[in-house]
């Protein structure tokens, strides 16, 4: 079970969190401006890389804050934890 280092609460068991999928997928500013194809890509298409992956987690049973985790999908190693306002670390998708 992963030990995730909540930026506000410190290391807690994975069971305290919920997974939120790929990070840095912004909600389109004006969805109406998107073609059906572009909107479908926002809705349904996400990366699934082997290796480092930036993903969102929420500390549901803790401080209820959302944050980002850079995790290696092969080794399950957490490479970085950062707040939504922080820039994405180098070397990730």
């Amino acid at each position, binding site marked *: 079970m992963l030990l995730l280092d909540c930026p506000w609460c410190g290391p807690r068991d994975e069971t305290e969190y919920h997974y939120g999928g790929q990070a840095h997928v912004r909600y389109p500013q*004006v969805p*109406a401006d998107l073609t*059906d194809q572009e909107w479908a890509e926002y*809705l349904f298409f996400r990366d699934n890389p082997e290796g480092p992956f930036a993903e969102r987690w*929420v500390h549901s049973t803790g401080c*209820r804050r959302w944050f980002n985790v850079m995790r290696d999908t092969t080794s399950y*190693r957490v490479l970085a934890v950062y707040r*939504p306002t922080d820039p994405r670390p180098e070397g990730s998708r």
Partner: protein
Amino acid sequence: MSAQPHRLPSGGRIDRDTVLRLTVDGQELTGHPGDTVASAMLAAGRLDVAPSIYRGRPRGIVAAGVEEPNALLEVLGRCSESMLPATTVSLVDGLAVRTLSGLGRLDPTGDEAVYDKKFAHTDVLVVGAGPAGLAAAWAAARSGARVILLDEQSEPGGSLLSCREETVNGSPALDWVREVVAELESAPEATVLSRTTAFGSYDDNYVVAVQHRTDHLGHPAPEGMSRRRVWHIRAARVVIATGAHERPLVFAGNDRPGVLLASAVRGYLNRYAVAPCSRAVVSTTNDSAYDTVTDLVAAGVEVAAVIDARPTLSPRAAEVAGTGVRVVPGSAVVETTGASRVDGVLVGALDEDGLLGGDVEADVETIACDLLAVSGGWSPVVHLHSQRQGRLRWDEVLAAFVPEGTVRGQRVAGSARGTFDLGGCLEEGTEAGVAAAVAAGFPIEAEAPVGRAATGEYGPVRQLWLVPGRRGEPADWHEHFVDLQRDQTVADVWRATGAGLRGIEHVKRHTSIGTAHDQGRTSAVNAIGVLAAALGGTPGEIGTTSYRAPYTPVSFAALAGRERGDLFDPERTTPIHPWHVAHGARFEIVGQWLRPRYFPRDGEDIDAAVARESRAARRGVAMMDASTLGKIEVCGADAGEFLDRVYTNAHRRLPVGSARYGVMCKPDGMILDDGVNLRLDENRFLLTTTTGGAAGVLDWLEEWLQTEWPELDVYCTSVTEQWTTIAVVGPKSRQVVARVAPDLDVSAEAFPFMTFRETTLASGVPARICRISFSGELAYEINVSGWYGLAVWEQLYAAGADLDITPYGTETMHVLRAEKGYPIVGQDTDGTVTPQDAGMDWVVSKRKDFIGNRSYTRADTARADRRHLIGLLPVDRVTRLPEGTQIIAPDTPVTPERGPVPMLGHVTSSYHSEALGRPFALALVAGGRDRIGETLIAQVGDSPVEVLVAGPVLYDPEGNRRDG
């Protein structure tokens, strides 16, 4: 009292002063504290167990630990337990067991023992209390770090429990064990757990172990003390010192009772003071079995011969030969003889290629014996390392898969990493313990204890995966057993390769080798070796199968722990719950909430109760506990703007004091949740959510606020339990509310539909009263602090007594709302339904953007044949359609021959309507709104039921009743 003819006159870690009685398959035996069932059986001269699972061959005890493949027990008792290895069950007085043919049964009797779990955090976790693990724990504990030492055996010591002459720091090894354990037990931050098996190793050093706490006590456990405890351990550092398992040899008749692992024989001699034979032959590929030889000799057992596969005598072999023991090099046991037990072995010479040379029949020598001790080398117990994706490497010299590299935060020490000598184990253990403590932030230095053993070295190993049969080809060798528990042989492996299989994972599944209860502890590496022999190549080229938890079987009862019976799942209750119980409510679980489903009066069934409750709500007055609805306060200058973005309809200009029904959708346009929202003041709204959706909706709102719109001044606070909500429903509800809230003008003009008022009840309780209806009737929802919820409920009940105010439950609520076509999110919707599909186009704003809006112009979402929520009326006016019933067009064939049946939709809600006098249903039907007036078929089992398609609103479609 039966005798123990094979018990040695002295020695062993048993208490000879106490005699324990044991029954095995009805046979009465005796033993002593410290015995296992297996050692007591052997002391009595019994080594046979139930025959093998598929072929019914005689089988006997093979091992002395968890690797035992044959001797599986059902321990009999009030609630029997199956599949326990006889080698691990500690003897207690009066124990009764039955040996099993590889298959147990789950006792249907309720198990009243307690099982629990415990969370633990530690700086250093050491798995295994053999020499390496003890040294590691000892060194780490000296640092003051928190240390947990786990071991699966009944006492610490590991392999040292089976030793005779080994020393540590110049003293007998077990003296050192005692000193270390005493030191650990007196260290405030060290925990030593025996009978505790680490069975799973998970990310970030999360190790799960099961502790056996009471079975060995021999008397009933103290009340509340768990029989087994599952430990969930988070460790900063882990030291794996899990030792190694000896491998048997593969030859004809290797399954005959009396063939034991050499190390097991040593264990029985030294730990249990049992000589399981009078004349032994030892067959080995390495030096470790010579310790068994010298111990047998020391115990007075004749060793007829040592058959050593290696072509020349190793120094250790020569040393033992020098004491007068006959050692036959370059040979192997090729066959055993005997009926139900070994009475002799056939020995043949091996050539360089491991083949039988010369004239096989003439050259084979027969040696009489009553036990054959075998050693085919050692396999490190790498399971926990491997479960964490730790890599393995084939070591050609050790003839073993050993850990390569380390898992982050872990170390493997001692024979688990292929270091088989005592001195090396102590050094590696000490080093690992020091390193673990230092890495966890507890600097320490320690000098390793000095260990000496007779062998000192494992010696060169001859890889001998397959001793040739005297006749035929490998495909015919049906008595060369690879997996005793699965009854699988060399012939079975050849059958798999003959079928074209090459990978060990495929061969494992084709043959089932390694898939039995013992998970291949004595068979997995031999299977790899046999496969290598079949295909040519080395075991390293074949590779291993994946190691997965659990390392040893764990009972489901232990995993369930205390979360069963009354504690199985939380039951959430409202402050009014005691009243519901006292008034005979029948409950249903909604989410985790326990809600009254109906309140039967004398002798009523559910239908009668619901009919009565419905009549009261439609003609008189009824009341319901609606406190389970989720409630969220949304505050801030941008609260209205935020709600406009998350709800499909507008909220920003909702007047203070008014209520609005809202639907929220996911970006794909599908309904997520709904509820009625109140504007408390300019910057404060109170949202309600579905009963099951409260937590999810709060997370959803926070997600948008935190990740997309952090610039909005909005704060959300969950207040679900803060408010008790009581719905008062029916034409006479106004009278009741007027009585409890005398300060409130309850007239329709002063207090119109979809508004709310703050007031103080006659009882002095502050209340927020809303005119909201989920039934179409005149109705009020009274919200008070949870502290006063029960009191206000009782006040309302008393105030309406003369009007026969009727409490009702969720079943009546469903009937009333379904008659009005109000959908329940999660029942009538399933994540594929848009508001338009549900017939609520009116709730979708055309003048503002919101989450999901863009999706309504997607081709798929705009299709005309989407499933619409509509009403269904069974034409026979009798059939109540089961929810989930499929809807098809008339004359659609439903026979299997005609292939898949084209489905038009399915029933989502179905009830009997007291108001309509007939059953009805809501259903999602393709193009349903365009089919109103058509007759379709609801397929109920084998019966087609004609149903008339109607609009969803079946009762009071004009809405005349809501103002009373």
